[in-house]
């Protein structure tokens, strides 16, 4: 399988302007050197706590922002320097499903107009053909065809997210960024939407970048998982490897916080790692490793040198000095 999406050293810095002349005095490094591949037909889960740059990363990959640096290649085409007008043709290959289904639908447009907008922009279908296509899309995501003339506020959250998914599917994209598509939904509806996404992936061969902070849901849907902390990917591994044997202390801490659904086992969970302190400001990240201020296994070297993101075990990447033989004598054993 080939990589559909190749991201190398992606950086997205937002300038901070201050002072009388609004000169740039610093930058919020929302995404700071992120690299990953997404293979065709797979789902890459992107997890991390609030504010770590997950959503910005997803949007930057689609070039909804003008990125600060790095390269993005989607479907064999480098898009990091394309102008927004050149990107227009590429938009048919890559689409996005948004977090808040209420906010991502224009309240003044009917469902038919919302789903039909991509068709209107990118195809020359006649009005009748377009309406027909919209109905097919509504069938695909399990919406009643009769609702085509209704407005978003007349739907439930889950139905609205289906409208958003239908819009994303309208142009037969290969790659969809799902930006926390289930975070704003009821738990019972979350399962429906995730199942719909999986079903569509099987049927249409879609590739997902699935952004979420719900570790259990990512475990369910993702093939590989990337963990982000303060604008950087700290660990990237196949799902089972990551959940069974996390290599980065941050991933360990994150996984130890997942609640145990079985009440009988709940109390017996071993090694709950509670991190101290707050996430540092992305405008002023610490020297060395970004995680050194809170890491339970911090070493001297962590405060000086930023660990390299490297392949520690086959297919299992991590950015941590613990797995570097040069700094840690036990490196071989932990890996």
């Amino acid at each position: 399988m080939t990589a559909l999406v190749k991201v190398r050293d992606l950086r997205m810095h937002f300038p901070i302007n201050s002072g009388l002349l609004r000169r740039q005095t610093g930058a919020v490094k929302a995404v700071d050197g992120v690299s990953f591949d997404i293979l065709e037909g797979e789902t890459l889960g992107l997890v991390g706590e609030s504010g770590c740059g997950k959503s910005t990363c997803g949007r930057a990959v689609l070039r909804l922002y003008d990125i600060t640096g790095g390269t993005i290649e989607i479907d064999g085409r480098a898009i990091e320097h394309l102008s927004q007008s050149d990107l227009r043709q590429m938009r048919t290959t890559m689409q996005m499903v948004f977090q808040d289904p209420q906010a991502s639908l224009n309240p003044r447009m009917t469902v038919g107009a919302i789903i039909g907008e991509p068709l209107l922009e990118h195809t020359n279908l006649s009005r009748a053909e377009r309406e027909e296509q919209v109905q097919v899309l509504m069938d695909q995501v399990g919406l009643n065809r009769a609702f085509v003339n209704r407005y978003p506020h007349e739907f439930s959250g889950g139905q609205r997210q289906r409208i958003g998914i239908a819009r994303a599917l309208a142009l037969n994209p290969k790659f969809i960024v799902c930006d926390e598509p289930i975070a704003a939904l009821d738990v019972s509806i979350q399962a429906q939407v995730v199942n719909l996404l999986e079903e569509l992936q099987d049927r249409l061969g879609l590739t997902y970048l699935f952004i979420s902070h719900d570790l259990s849901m990512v475990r369910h849907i993702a093939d590989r998982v990337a963990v982000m902390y303060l604008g950087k990917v700290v660990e990237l591994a196949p799902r089972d490897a990551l959940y069974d044997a996390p290599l980065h202390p941050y991933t360990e801490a994150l996984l130890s916080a997942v609640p145990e659904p079985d009440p009988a086992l709940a109390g017996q969970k071993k090694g709950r790692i509670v991190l101290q302190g707050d996430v540092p400001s992305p405008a002023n990240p610490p020297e060395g490793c970004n995680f050194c201020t809170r890491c339970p296994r911090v070493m001297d070297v962590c405060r000086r040198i930023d660990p390299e993101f490297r392949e520690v075990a086959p297919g299992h990447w991590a950015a941590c000095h613990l797995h570097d033989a040069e700094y840690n004598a036990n490196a071989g054993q932990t890996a």
Partner: protein
Amino acid sequence: MTDARDPDTPVGADMATVAASGAVAGGGPVLRTRARSQWWDVWDQFRSHKGAMAGAIIFLLIVLVVLIGPYVWDVDPTKTNIRARNAPMSLTAPFGTDQLGRDIFARMIEGGRVSLAVGMTAMLLSLFLGTLVGVLAGYFRRLDGVLMRLTDLFLALPLLPLLLVMVLLFREPLTAAFGIEMGIFILIVSAIGITSWMQTARIVRGDVLALKEREFVLAARATGTPPRRIVTRHILPNIMSPIMVSATLGIATAIITESALSFLGLGFPPDFPTWGRLLNDGVPYLELYPGRAFWPGMAISLVVLSINYVGDGLRDALDPRIRGR
């Protein structure tokens, strides 16, 4: 404000709305929405807003009287009759006569044409300018600074001296080119239009700035919709409310500004009646003949109020979230 929330409203009126929305369901077991045009829904909602309907009827009546009036009431508004001056209301002069014996009703009709035309056109012009500047400044970051400083500049300009200069500079060439009445009409409309768009621009810019960050605009960008169509399809329909409010207030301001200009001798010629001029002419006689100021004042207030209600109803009718409630 809206009659629908008035507790005195008979229940039957609401039942009619409920029955109408029942018809939406189609009666069948499948909850199917109508395929009919959205504009029928807008009309249905507008009709259910009683204030808006009353406003629309009053406004249309005024427009009708002003348009058809001269053919029915064929009294020359400029004919003086010193013997019948300052006459009270009577059958021969429904609103009485002024100090020169001119029929006030005929002058109101004549003045209404000018005032309404000036008010509407100036409002449209200032609305267009304000919306254009506001949307450009709000949506395109690069233009924001320049356009907003321009807006500040216009806000800081003392309006009357500016109008005086404009009138002095352009009155002659315009009257030469378009004739005296048309020339002054164009002058006054553009003078009012380009000195009253700033409030609209500021409000619109603020709303666009907020709207631009909403996810559905981002979704449109992710779809590849070019900026001009994002503005027309996603931004403009969502800033209808502030634009409507500006529009209704704009008409009143335009009518009043026109009267101020005429009062200063910079607008239409003194014998040329407009509502604002009639009002000003009536002010010195307020104690003796209050009717002279009352009728033009009443006409201006009625127009403004009715347009306000129409705007209110339109805003509700155009919002699908309120429609059908």
